[in-house]
């Protein structure tokens, strides 16, 4: 009996040790997925090393046309260059922002990553984490494929550090069927919009949807209202230049308008627990009548169940102020290259090739509405939907606009603003107080 138990304990100790090593083994496997070192890079033949390029991106959804075209282009490149393997790291937007920050802190930025324009990428550029891409852009005329002026949002000190996947504007998508059911028409002024909301609500139709757990969504909508009440773009720039403060009447008017919309019951219950995808799904499954979002959402709406029932309209004027041809401008998330990449030349070669083929592939995959490059093609003949044509026509009307708050102000100020706006969804607050909050946060973070 004693011998038995001795053997048993030996076996158990052995199994335990084995399982520990197994756990340890799999952990290191996970760990090697993200850093930018090529795993097979040690086989050092003269010309053709086996290298792995890590490609961090924000297209995790397989129904997204951009995801499909990315996979197609990656496979094509891999087959043309057998010594290069491209590892995809697909995350949703907010998770990617976070992951990049942690990777940046430990200097393990992936070879290709995603950054957002202007103020959001500035800390990375200043910390010298991104490689300038001007040489890549000067090859094969890549620079010329981008819309005029677009690359400015990604350039600092005369050098460009990222190439965008889109150039979008903020529009209001609406469900034509639900509008008919509720007996309402497309509003041309904000006051009409509030009436539409009240009518729809009284008929049991959810007027608007938003994914306010991701705080940038509410901020995006709010900034569009500020664009109207300020009677033009550039409010935040004026605040930064100290020409105005947040206690300006235009800001307070925007806060009041925003709260009116919320108090009229526009948004779904528990709005601050819906993230971006959940909020958009509410619209895409026909459960909400209106959805304010950037035109990047077009592709997803077309592949959803409400395709064919959706139209778009420009955000209306507030109290007669503002120009509906001024939109919230959203230069897209952009691909950047790590300055410390172990395979800088190969990565830039891949990215350059990728961006050259991006417009064509996006056009064919029906995801070309809102990309940042010029596309030659007959959209209608290619089978783009009526809604896509409507959106493309809106692009022609753009006469200017503003960037989102978190692309203009530094992260400290932006965070204070984002939580302040999120708060308005949950409780009513005096607009003068909100203004004071913003001004205090701005001053504290911009000493």
């Amino acid at each position, binding site marked *: 009996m004693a011998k038995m138990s001795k053997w048993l304990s030996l076996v158990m100790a052995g199994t335990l040790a084995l399982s520990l090593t197994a756990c340890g083994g799999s952990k290191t496997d996970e760990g090697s997925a993200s850093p930018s070192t090529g795993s097979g890079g040690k086989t050092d033949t003269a010309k053709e090393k086996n290298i792995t390029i890590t490609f961090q991106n924000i297209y995790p959804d397989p129904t997204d046309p951009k995801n499909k075209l990315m996979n197609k282009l990656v496979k094509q490149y891999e087959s043309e260059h057998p010594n290069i393997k491209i590892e995809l790291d697909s995350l949703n937007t907010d998770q990617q922002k976070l992951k990049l920050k942690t990777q*940046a802190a430990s200097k393990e930025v992936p070879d290709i990553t995603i950054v957002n324009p202007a103020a959001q990428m500035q800390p990375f550029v200043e910390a010298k984490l991104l490689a300038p891409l001007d040489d890549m852009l000067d090859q094969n005329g890549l620079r010329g494929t981008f819309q005029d002026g677009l690359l400015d949002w990604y350039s600092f000190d005369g050098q460009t550090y990222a190439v965008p996947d889109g150039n979008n504007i903020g529009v209001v998508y609406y469900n034509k069927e639900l509008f008919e059911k509720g007996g309402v028409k497309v509003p041309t002024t904000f006051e009409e919009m509030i009436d539409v909301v009240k009518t729809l609500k009284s008929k049991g139709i959810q007027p608007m949807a938003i994914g306010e*757990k991701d705080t940038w969504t509410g901020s995006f909508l709010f900034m569009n209202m500020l664009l109207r009440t300020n009677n033009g773009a550039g409010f935040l720039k004026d605040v930064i230049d100290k020409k105005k403060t947040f206690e300006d009447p235009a800001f307070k008017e925007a806060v009041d308008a925003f709260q009116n919309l919320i108090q009229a019951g526009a948004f779904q*219950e*528990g709005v601050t627990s819906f993230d971006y995808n959940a909020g958009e799904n509410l619209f895409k499954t026909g459960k909400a009548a209106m959805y304010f979002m950037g035109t990047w959402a077009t592709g997803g709406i077309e592949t959803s169940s409400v395709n064919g029932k959706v139209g778009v309209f420009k955000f209306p004027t507030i109290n007669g102020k503002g120009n509906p041809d001024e939109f919230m401008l959203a230069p897209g998330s952009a691909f950047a290259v790590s300055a410390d990449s172990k395979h800088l030349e190969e990565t830039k070669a891949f990215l350059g090739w990728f961006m050259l083929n991006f417009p064509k592939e996006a056009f064919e995959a029906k995801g070309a509405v809102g990309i940042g490059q010029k596309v030659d093609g007959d959209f209608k003949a290619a089978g783009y939907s009526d809604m896509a044509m409507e959106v493309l026509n809106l692009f022609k009307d753009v006469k200017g606009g503003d960037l989102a708050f978190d692309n203009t102000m530094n*992260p*400290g100020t932006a965070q*204070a603003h984002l*939580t302040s706006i999120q*708060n308005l969804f*949950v409780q009513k607050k005096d607009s003068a107080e909100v203004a004071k909050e913003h001004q205090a946060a701005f001053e504290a973070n911009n000493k």
Partner: protein
Amino acid sequence: MNVLKVSRLTIAAFVLPCLIIYVGIVFVPILVSMYSGLLDWNGIGESRFIGFENFKNLFFHDPVFWPSVRRTLMFAVFSMAEIPLALLVAILLKRYIRRPNFLVSSYFLPVILSVVVVGQLWKTIYNPASMGGMLNQVLNAVGLGSWAHEWLTDPSVAMYSLYFVALWQYLGYHTLIQYTGILNVPEEIYEAARIDGAEGFTADRYITFPNVIPIFKISIVLAFIGSLQAFDMVMVMTGGGPAHATDVISTHMYNMSFLSMKYGYGSSIAAFLVVLCLAATFVINLIFNKLEKRFS
């Protein structure tokens, strides 16, 4: 030391490797983090030494910090208040159930579920009735609709909803610990008490409680320290929102470090948390040592 008949040098030599690893992995990062608290640093760029300014801002100028401390301490208090309940359950299990192993295991089940799973589960339960939330639907169905709240988005109830989930998850854990403690009390004492006429809860008052105090202390310390660090549950369910209504110290630290890119400031919050945990452990140990002396 000499009982082992081994020289002190030998003991030191054997303990040293592990000690070095432990110090390197636990103490050195804590000290580095405390040093980071003295910097103005955005996490990826240059840092600037600013002394105690982060701490000054934290204690005097941060409107989110003290409410988050209050919520964290309340979390700790609620967690500690759960232990007597766990003890009661353990006592009942021992007295009235012949083979309680199955019940103990099933109570323990939520503990081994990942926090993310528990968080998602309760988020769905807490959802508004229109989104299929079970709790509100049940309340509406039995006519108690007025008790239905927006459990995770109403600032006044959100934190309590979170407390409940954490307590639900760990009840089994503490029950198991207390149950093991009760099992260690020798049966003879109870028999002797029964002869003297003390049964049931009277016996518990004079026999079980005093003997279980060391185990009780373990549970209290675990509950307290664990709740001070609570992060994943809050992050998964509400993210600290809406508008800081459910922010605890660790989520505030996370938001400051990663979202507002104020890594130095976040480090100062972390330093505060470390000091708080140490102080709390010290105080709890002191109280329980006094209690143990009184009872034995």
